């Protein structure tokens, strides 16, 4: 028998009172004319359209660029909540970097039997080309977007580690910018920690990871698949904000053992490449030979210390969903401490007992593909029809090792602005973490994604999710 989960609302307590982080905001909100807020909401949408903050949707000929709906009620975290969260994230990110180095070098965690060898050896994200190589400053995950969900006042869980090329940070920055423009008076009343340093910190963090071959001030470039990519806006936004060149694969080539970009005055060396393309497309000579997006020969230059690639190729081994289930062990193994942030209970369908349990309880579980992302290829048991469950059961039985299952978490809710005033909707949180040889830097807040449909738990922007500005209060 499953117990009906109770949902934790971050603003309104069961007795109707307002939680402490939201008190000042609540008083301000109640003093507002709803018509004014309505017009502010439209203003925000016009602002996003004009500035072109859009994402592309694959497979839609008409209206290829869509806006991610923005909700004007902020999600607010207290200083205390944030400081615990950020400690937990930092611990986890340090462990992840130690783990990746270990996997590509001594493999002590495998030898100690804490993780099954097969999980690494047969993993698509594991790149043999990285064996025995240490990237500059020992950093593999320069940029991480840790997905956090909450189920109770003190109950935060890590849902995914996103150690490859997490996106969404431009929305974090633009959401704040929009709120500042729309409601300057709120920021005078409530002291919110700023997020605007992110691009500067990103640049600094990338520069600090420059390769041995770098002479003088490191030259940073952002590598994008091009204007048709769904996250192109973000790529150009970050390049612009950092003062870095935005390049595509065909702008780059190997020149005298370095990677150089084609400028109006000839080829110029790039020291650090913040790439927003997958490992597989990075180098047609080492990986997918069909790739037109990458740079032939870049892996050789990389291994010879001629360029820093962020994030490092092969870092995806750490955010695989099967590896995820071992994260508490990984944190303990490398830091000697208990993990501060909890993992969501995860059933590995590769294991017969777990598979049986999952098949028996499909209607209550969320089943995900081990390598999937973006909410595609997953089953949300409680929301699925009998037919969908039956279809999924066949896929699961055919390839159990491709799947993991988790209980349906009752994600916390935060109110959104609707015609009738405020209405609770489920949210998650993606804080953005920068790692460099000098340390770990976490921007206070992050991107709050919100499922705009009442009762829905799917927050992905590709499936009808929206975003909110996320506030971390000053102490």
């Amino acid at each position: 028998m499953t117990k009906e989960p109770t949902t934790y609302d971050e603003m309104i307590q069961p007795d109707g009172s307002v939680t402490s982080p939201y008190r000042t905001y609540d008083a301000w909100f109640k003093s507002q004319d709803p018509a004014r807020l309505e017009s502010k909401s439209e203003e925000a949408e016009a602002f996003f359209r004009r500035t072109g903050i859009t994402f592309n949707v694959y497979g839609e000929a008409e209206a290829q660029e869509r806006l991610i709906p923005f909700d004007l009620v902020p999600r607010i975290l207290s200083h205390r909540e944030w400081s615990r969260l950020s400690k937990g994230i930092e611990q986890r990110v340090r462990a992840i970097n130690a783990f990746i180095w270990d996997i590509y070098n001594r493999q002590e965690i495998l030898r100690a039997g804490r993780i099954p060898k097969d999980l690494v050896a047969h993993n698509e994200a594991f790149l043999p080309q990285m064996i025995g190589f240490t990237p500059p400053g020992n950093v593999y995950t320069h940029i991480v977007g840790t997905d956090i969900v909450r189920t109770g006042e003190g109950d935060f869980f890590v849902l995914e580690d996103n150690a490859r090329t997490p996106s969404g940070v431009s929305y974090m920055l633009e959401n704040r910018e929009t709120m500042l423009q729309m409601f300057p008076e709120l920021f005078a009343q409530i002291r919110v920690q700023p997020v605007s340093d992110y691009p500067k910190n990103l640049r600094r963090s990338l520069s600090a990871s420059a390769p041995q071959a770098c002479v003088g001030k490191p030259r940073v470039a952002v590598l994008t698949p091009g204007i048709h990519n769904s996250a192109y806006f973000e790529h150009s936004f970050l390049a612009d904000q950092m003062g870095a060149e935005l390049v595509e694969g065909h702008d780059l080539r190997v020149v005298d053992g370095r990677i150089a970009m084609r400028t109006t005055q000839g080829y110029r060396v790039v020291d650090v490449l913040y790439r927003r393309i997958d490992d597989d497309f990075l180098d047609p000579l080492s990986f997918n030979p069909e790739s037109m997006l990458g740079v032939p020969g870049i892996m050789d230059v990389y291994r010879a210390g001629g360029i820093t690639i962020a994030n490092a190729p092969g870092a995806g081994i750490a955010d695989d969903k099967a590896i995820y289930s071992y994260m508490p062990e990984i944190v303990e193994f490398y830091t000697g401490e208990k993990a501060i942030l909890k993992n969501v209970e995860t059933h590995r369908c590769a294991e017969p007992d777990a598979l049986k349990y999952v098949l028996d309880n499909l209607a209550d579980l969320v089943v995900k593909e081990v390598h999937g992302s973006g909410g595609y290829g997953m089953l949300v048991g409680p929301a699925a029809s009998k037919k969908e469950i039956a279809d999924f059961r066949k896929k699961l039985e055919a390839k159990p090792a491709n799947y993991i299952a988790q209980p349906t978490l009752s994600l916390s809710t935060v109110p959104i602005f609707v015609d009738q005033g405020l209405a609770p909707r489920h949210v998650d949180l993606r804080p953005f973490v920068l790692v460099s040889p000098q340390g770990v830097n976490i921007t206070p807040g992050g991107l709050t994604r919100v499922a705009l449909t009442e009762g829905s738990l799917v927050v992905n922007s590709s499936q009808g999710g929206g975003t909110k500005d996320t506030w971390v209060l000053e102490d």
Partner: protein
Amino acid sequence: MLGKTAGGLYWMFRFLERSENTARLLEAGFRMALTRSSDAESEWKSVVTTSGNGIGYEAKYDTYTDTLVMDWLLRDADNPSSVMSVTKSARDNARLVRTALTTEVWEAVNDNWMTLRDLLRDPITTVDLPAALAIIRKQSALVRGALYGTMLRNDIYDFARIGTFIERADNTARIIDVKYYTLLPSASAVGSSLDNVQWEMILRSVSAHRCFRWLDEKDMTATAIADFLIFDKRLPRSLAFCVKQTTENLRYLEQEYQERHPCHDQADRLKRWVAGTDINTVFDLGLHEVVTEFIRDNNALGTQIEQDFRFMA
């Protein structure tokens, strides 16, 4: 600057310029057809020919009518030079080079695209045409204003300007070329009423019908108009003006980069030709021949610029 970025800027401004020129050409054609309904079909045909891609039009339609030509030039996605097509191409290039643009320029180009997309969603009727063309012209003015008012005067600006003037020179030259027979000097000092209508059409398509009168130095003759369109440096759409601007922006690039390319020599040759020729020589050599050669040289210059500044790998 990345070669690709320079190329994106150059093409972005070529497309923006083309949008405005197409709108102007359409306006001139529309007036002509209104005032001379008997010959409307051949006038519309010459409008399509002037805008380029007459082959594409004829593959699609058998006749030249106001409705068909308006739709072809304003909205048709099959016409890569239709206002909507080039507006989208300009915006795609702007997205490509967004890091090189000020927020104001980007927003103006994005707004241009959004406005025209709404404006041209359904076919434009002849009743609505003047208002629609006014909006298209106004949108171009906003982009140009943002460029003038907010961009640094550096290589970014130079590539934007070079794209503008290579395109504009091409447009003006093609207008002259399609109508060249009406510009040949005739025996009579004053043109017939038929000539007058044609000349007015030509002047309108470069927005010069009023300024020609204002200058008020010469009578309206074929020679005076041809001279005006080719050699008058005060007219911002004359060939001489465009060549002067292109040469100047190329010289700034030479100074900034400390490097001289073959395109600099080509541009200088074009400039010397303009300076060393007068309208009588043009008529002696043949107006059609001279203009055809200019179009070829101007295009070759564009191609050379693309190579010299490494727009592509």
